[in-house]
């Protein structure tokens, strides 16, 4: 306790003597966000605790609680354990580890700081990427006794991956190596080699002790050989990204259109890069329409100029289409629009990535449906080797191709974090399952154009005198899908309808003969069937499909491919016990005997539809009755006059 240096940031004098001068000074502070990366024992929490303490962010009541806690559960004997200040959750205090991203705040004369405190354990890559995503700078902590470790490499790689431009190498616990310059120099040399390998061009090394306070706020007499800045000096003077972003071309992702009355139409958003003034020529993407900025409107009067990092509302000189998801950009240098990309993906969910499955992709203010291909490779974040991978598990990082269902406005992540960073959201659970960084668009997105056709889908449908549709039968193996689907087709055919039945067998023997029964293959099977069914509805047909299609997400994917109302989900609801009892093809017996793997209902799940358009309970009606009911519903709904 007696070893604690007196806080250096004594602003009390100015506060007490001239509060107005103090406030004036503090109104012009800038803000820096940074992360601290280190392993459990590198002294990360201690360093943050120290920064809070030295900048007087700890009050007496908190300090009293801290002293008591330190004696009770601290790891520093009778001395203050700063780590206890920042390890917030009860579970963490018990386990003595940090398990999530926590945000801390402190302020000096020149800057306000937001610190993301992120855990060092391997299984929490996800948290570090999260904390790093908003940071301008990373403090990479190294225990002077241990030198550059695997986790140091991991933290540095992640910081670089997320695009942090400023790296501080804080060689901590110098007090425990006798403030030996040779130790420090050796670690810096090791790190420099590694940094070059991963493309970190510059970093600022400093010898510190978070626990003793060396070189944190004042240069330490213990390291007379060190000529660099103190940690705080450096944090106070490094350039913030927000200033760098202003030098780039103007981009405003439109968040919300403000229409309080017929005379006002404002486009609200946070400027991602560049600056804007009334009179600037702009272009709205993806439409490409042009106009000029009329006003920048605020509650306190119009602005002459706005810059990257500000939330604004602007109006345009012309009435052009522009809505949420569009990007307003400088007319002379707009961003690209594409629908296929290469991207780095950090997987953040316990459930592994499913190549081919549709997820929501959100980037800036755009949300679209997207699929990810099997990764080109996964990166071993400890060795940086590229490994072959079929999927990405929790905390895995890989490079893969991403396709969106409609074109999005984007920039490479390296140029623009806002228009290049994205998250993937599971369509069923709604959880955020991945973060990604776009590299570039793939050529075929630019070169493959829709072939404009003269005879469109309406013409095809009109010629056949019917409303095209996909009657999608789903249910367990042996539930009666194919039987009922066949009768339905016969009945429709008899009434002069143009139909086609896509069945597991006629597809598996041809189009999809390269696919097996793994989860990934099943997803691809359904995707292809969906695409074929869609082409057939373009041709005006009523398509009947009979596939187990066990996953809700894939059925919803096909639903999303078609115009509203054309996808009719028919749930053939036969309880597992009943289907197994029938076991027409003897498959359940084989699955139970372990001869068939991934068999739906046995060792692979069936996700029943939540709101099918039609549900058939086969324990209550015969196939014939079921088919009558379906035909009646289909024709009744759509075309009583045909």
């Amino acid at each position, binding site marked *: 306790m007696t070893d604690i240096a007196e806080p250096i940031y004594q602003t009390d004098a100015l506060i007490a003597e001239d509060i107005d001068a103090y406030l004036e000074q503090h109104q012009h502070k800038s803000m820096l966000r940074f992360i601290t990366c280190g392993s459990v024992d590198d002294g990360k929490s201690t360093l943050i605790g120290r920064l809070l303490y030295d900048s007087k962010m700890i009050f007496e009541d908190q300090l009293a609680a801290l002293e008591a806690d330190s004696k009770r559960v601290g790891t520093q004997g009778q001395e203050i354990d700063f780590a206890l200040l920042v390890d917030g959750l009860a579970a963490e205090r018990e386990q003595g580890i940090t398990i999530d991203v926590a*945000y801390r705040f402190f302020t000096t004369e020149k800057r306000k700081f937001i610190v993301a405190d992120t855990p060092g354990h391997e299984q929490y890559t996800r948290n570090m990427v999260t904390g790093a995503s*908003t940071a301008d700078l990373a403090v990479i902590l190294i225990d002077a006794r241990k030198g550059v470790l695997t986790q140091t490499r991991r933290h540095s790689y992640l910081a670089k991956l997320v695009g942090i431009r400023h790296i501080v190498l804080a060689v901590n616990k110098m007090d425990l190596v006798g403030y030996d310059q040779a130790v420090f120099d050796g670690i810096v040399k090791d790190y420099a080699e590694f940094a070059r390998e991963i493309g970190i061009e510059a970093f600022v090394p400093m010898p510190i002790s978070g626990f003793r306070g060396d070189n944190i706020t004042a240069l330490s007499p213990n390291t007379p050989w060190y000529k660099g800045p103190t940690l705080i000096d450096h944090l106070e003077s490094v350039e913030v990204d927000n200033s760098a972003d202003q030098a780039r071309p103007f981009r405003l992702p439109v968040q919300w259109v403000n229409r309080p009355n017929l005379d006002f139409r404002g486009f609200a958003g946070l400027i991602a890069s560049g600056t804007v003034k009334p009179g600037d020529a702009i272009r709205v993407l993806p439409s490409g329409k042009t106009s000029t900025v009329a006003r920048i409107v605020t509650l306190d009067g119009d602005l002459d100029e706005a810059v990257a990092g500000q939330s604004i509302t602007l109006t345009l000189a012309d009435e052009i289409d522009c809505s949420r998801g569009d990007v307003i950009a400088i007319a002379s240098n707009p961003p690209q629009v594409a629908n296929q990309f290469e991207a780095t993906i950090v997987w953040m969910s316990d459930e592994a990535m499913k190549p081919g499955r549709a997820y929501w992709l959100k980037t800036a203010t755009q949300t679209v449906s997207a699929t990810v291909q099997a990764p080109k490779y996964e990166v071993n974040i400890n060795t940086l080797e590229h490994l072959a991978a079929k999927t990405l598990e929790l905390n895995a990082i890989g490079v893969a191709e991403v396709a969106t269902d409609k074109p999005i406005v984007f920039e490479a992540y390296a140029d623009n974090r806002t228009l290049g960073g994205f998250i993937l959201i599971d369509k069923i659970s709604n959880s955020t399952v991945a973060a990604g960084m776009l590299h570039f668009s793939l050529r075929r997105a630019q070169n493959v154009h829709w072939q404009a056709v003269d005879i469109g889908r309406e013409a095809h449908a009109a010629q056949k005198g019917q409303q095209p549709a996909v009657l999608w039968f789903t249910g367990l193996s042996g539930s009666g899908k194919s039987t009922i689907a066949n009768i339905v087709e016969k009945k429709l055919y008899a009434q002069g309808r143009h139909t086609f039945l896509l069945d597991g067998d006629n597809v598996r023997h041809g189009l999809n003969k390269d696919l097996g029964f793994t989860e990934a293959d099943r997803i691809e099977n359904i995707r292809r069937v969906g695409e074929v069914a869609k082409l057939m509805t373009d041709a005006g047909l009523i398509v009947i499909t009979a596939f187990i299609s066990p996953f809700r997400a894939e059925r919803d994917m096909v639903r999303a491919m078609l115009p509203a109302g054309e996808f009719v989900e028919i749930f053939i609801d036969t309880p597992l016990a009943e289907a197994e009892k029938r076991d027409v093809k003897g498959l359940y017996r084989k699955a139970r005997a372990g001869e068939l793997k991934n068999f739906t209902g046995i060792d692979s799940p069936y996700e029943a539809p939540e709101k099918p358009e039609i549900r058939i309970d086969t324990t209550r009606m015969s196939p014939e009755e079921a088919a009558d009911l379906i035909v009646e519903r289909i024709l009744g709904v759509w075309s009583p006059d045909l």
Partner: protein
Amino acid sequence: MTRTLTHLERLEAESIHIMREVVAEAEKPVMLYSVGKDSAVMLHLARKAFYPAPPPFPLLHVDTTWKFKAMYELRDRMARESGMELLVYQNPEAKERGINPFDHGPLHTDMWKTEGLKQALNLHGFDVAFGGARRDEEKSRAKERIFSFRTASHGWDPKNQRPELWNLYNARKARGESIRVFPISNWTELDIWQYIQLERVPIVPLYFSAPRPTVERDGLLLMVDDERFPLLPGEVPVERSIRFRTLGCYPLTGAVESEAATLPEVIQEMLLTTTSERQGRAIDKDAGGAGMEKKKQEGYF
């Protein structure tokens, strides 16, 4: 020619961005308005975010009937000035049972605030509720996301939070689930005060020092705000020059003796003080060190 934004400009931009994101993605958002200084700043930011339109959501005051009179006055005035609908909700069961802070201790907070909030959100079917919590207030707040997801029963699971990257917020949820959104998460107490000064944000006069009738009880200096305050035998209200650093229910909120009657003086006093702002709140002291974390898991804001 670049212009470095000040920390207050960046905080403001972030908060406005968050609010607009909610309005664009939520079905039925609402702003919880507690009339304190943090709520005042949040409301001010909302007015800026949607100008010239009024903020496109109502204000919800989960009332305990035990707020200071001055708070009710400011609440009604701000609703008028902002052009927003004000919804006031009082838990009917708490009302019927006469739950109050003098006789019922922690049950008072639980019934009026925690239960009241859940009831109000369910009653109106709000799917997103803005709250004015800040991460610097308390340890467990430091780890909470800006978009904090709640189960259908309003519970918070700190180990199962959605990762929150860049300024990309995932506002998707299933029917019945809801999201609490904290637009001023990254503001500190000093930021709040500086912004109030810079933007002339109206706040309750109780934040400024004045002579007020008080009694001292369990180490807290309590203000006798109305005749419902039961005086103990021999207890006589004493006029002291006091002000409040936070405002809650008046029998639960401790005042500090102070001469700070202007904003700069209040800020000066805050900067020179040696105790944290929630120290005057009885609520954090329940259940030992993990008081707030426990309350949040139960659905407290």
